[in-house]
């Protein structure tokens, strides 16, 4: 069964990097360029996992996490925060919002995949 991952990032570069890594590992990838379009794509995308940036226009990553967690349709979907910042403050905020984990940019493809597999129990 194909695993589908929704990646939300306002940077086309990061989207491309994430998509390359994920597709290379056999995941199906849906991309969104900001929080709002990410949330809008949920009903159709039905992702098994969400990767989101924090700093984005329209709706930031915290907003995405809170919106997903508040929606009964996607109760336990794991959400990984992909961020340049590794501060404890950010992790705490992400956790309060309901993030599953975090990956610090720049990421290595292998590590990204390992983390996703771990979180998905694969």
């Amino acid at each position, binding site marked *: *069964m194909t*695993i*589908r991952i*929704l990646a939300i990032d*306002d*940077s*086309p*570069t*990061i989207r*491309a*990097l994430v998509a*390359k890594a994920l597709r290379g590992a056999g995941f*199906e*990838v*849906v*991309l*969104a*360029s900001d929080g709002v*379009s*990410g949330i809008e*794509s949920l009903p*159709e*995308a*039905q992702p*098994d*996992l969400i990767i989101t940036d924090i*700093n*984005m*226009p329209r709706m930031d990553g915290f907003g995405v996490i809170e919106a997903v*967690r508040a929606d009964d349709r996607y109760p*336990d*979907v*794991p*959400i990984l925060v992909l961020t*340049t*910042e*590794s*501060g*404890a*403050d*950010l992790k*705490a905020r992400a*956790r309060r919002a*309901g*993030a*599953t*984990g*975090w990956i*610090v*940019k*720049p*990421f*290595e493809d*292998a*590590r990204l995949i390992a983390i996703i597999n*771990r*979180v*998905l*129990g*694969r």
Partner: protein
Amino acid sequence: MAEMDEIQEMFFDECGELLEGLANGLRQMDQPGYDKETVHAVFRAVHSIKGGAAAFGLNDLVTFAHRFETVLDLLRSDRLEADPALMSIMHRSSDCLADLVTAARQSSEPDHAKREALLTELDRIMADGGDDDAIEFTPMVIDIGALDGEDPLPGLAGEAGFNIHFIPDGDLYRSGNEPAALFLALAKLGEAEIRVDSDFVPPLSDWSEDQPQLRWTIILHTNCAADEIAEIFEFVEDCCELHVTPLTAEPDGPPKPDEISDSSPGDIPETAQINPPEPAQTDSARPSRPAASGGDSGATIRVSLARVDRLMNMIGELVIKEAMLAQVIQTAGMSEDPDVLAGLDAIGQLAGDIQESVMAIRAQPLKLVFQRMHRIVREAADATGKQVNLVTVGEETEVDKTMIERLIDPLTHMIRNSVDHGLEDGETRQARGKPAEGRITLSAAHRSGRVQIEVSDDGGGINRPKVREIAEERGLVASGASLNPAEIDQLLFMPGFSSKTEVSALSGRGVGLDVVRREIMDLGGRVMIHSEIGQGTTFSIALPLTLAVLEGMLIQLCGETMVLPINAVQETMRANPSMLHGVGQDGRLLSNRGDLIPIIDLAGEFGLRDCPATIEGGVLIVIEADNQKRSALLVDGIIDQRQVVIKSLEENYGHVPGVSAATILGDGKIALIIDPEEVVRTSSGDHDRAVPAAAAQG
């Protein structure tokens, strides 16, 4: 690797957009009461550059972007105020960031001194801004630790492995983490024996999500290091109790009493041997969903310029083939057939539409160039100590991408020239009753099939006596020659004219306006100058919309067909003797709209003179050159007016005097495209070529 290169190229393109947004945002922040969202957008731009740069290991860029971003974060959180002094540093940081991006893209060395100086200033601001909780950032934290298994715990000779006690709390479940997934990950490290202790699960009536309910003990037989265990729990360490002890240290031991105070050791826990189960996330039935990953691919795609160019070339060929087809049809005597004509017409229309569409793909707003000019103005203003405000108008005007790139240098030069020579210094301005801050307006608009770009200043206007003096000094013009104001202004474009003796601080100023003029002419454009004493000076550039196709007038010249760019043509007329005036021995002038304008025999200019030209039998085409001087070209006849595809000659033949390029006509023959400017220039210095009166009368 090719894919990575492509993504990196994409990153640099993205940087261009981000830097543009950054510069724009900072300019908005110069105004009091700016929108708060602007600061966020500015922050995000720098942040995205940093993120991407880190992915490609561009550490210079990362370091600078990081500190820049930290200061922006202070602004964003109102811990700093966007006063002019700070904004000036922000603008310069934005410029420096742009330089670093360029350096990274070209793999060249950036200006380290400038960067260091700015970093110092940014650090100072951070210190002032009470930056006690700056954004933490570790650029290179990719550390997979002991995943290679090279550092196993120095276990004793006995059983290697760990005893893991794990008590998740409610947050763990709410954050999308799943104990089963963690256990699976553990099981991959070795053999895991997992026991759940459900004694603490309260009756349903006392159920509270926030209380830990299930407790787990995992005995993991493995050779891996403790780091690897820690990594598995990295996302949940803040929402569980976790005790990991080496098996050898305390084999199969319960947690220490003080760690889990209310444990009841007497119970025999349930034991479960983990076989990789189906992950909970994937086995539930889901609504069917489309296979395509729709998502947000956006309404734009990136296409390499080479592909668009190829398309453009093919359309050029299509236009030629279409003309050839028309010729063949005519030769075959079918040109009267209404069906054939309608079909041909439709193809022609379509070819035109396709051409326009492709041109639209290549078109980019001049914004890309204009925005760079803010920086140029800033630098030039700093160097000259003048206060300058740059106003841009019509940034959205679109021109061909190639043109955009080639406009940067001439515009940069013109803008610097305006700051440097056009504007007076603050004191002089105030003495003249003008605001101390000079204004330079950079505007663009589409005007009758051409793009008009103007650089105007509100300075003192061209100091014509001074210009004349310099020109005479340098031998560009005979001393005491009679020159009208427009002619004096034209001297600025003469090679060798350069009045910049005092300005050395403006770097890259090795060229004069003559080079600007040459560059614009190479783009098929012209430069005009207009100046009013005390009011300012305006340089106008008129450019064609594209470099690939030209609207041309096909003319007949001693049996040859040639093309004259239509934009140079003012009017055409069949010569009649009453309009002609003799001058000197054998010269002739055309009386036209109150002016007497020289007649140039084009066939003579191109050395085609074995058929003697008679003015009366020919057609005169009045053209206007850059300097607003008009001339009349004598040709044998006008054949047609049509778009022609420009084919460069210079690559194979070098520069041919009086000819700018060539094109292929419908019959497959080559026609040369005339450079009217050059023809006028060469002929005016060569009176032998003036139309002989005898021939004219004969």
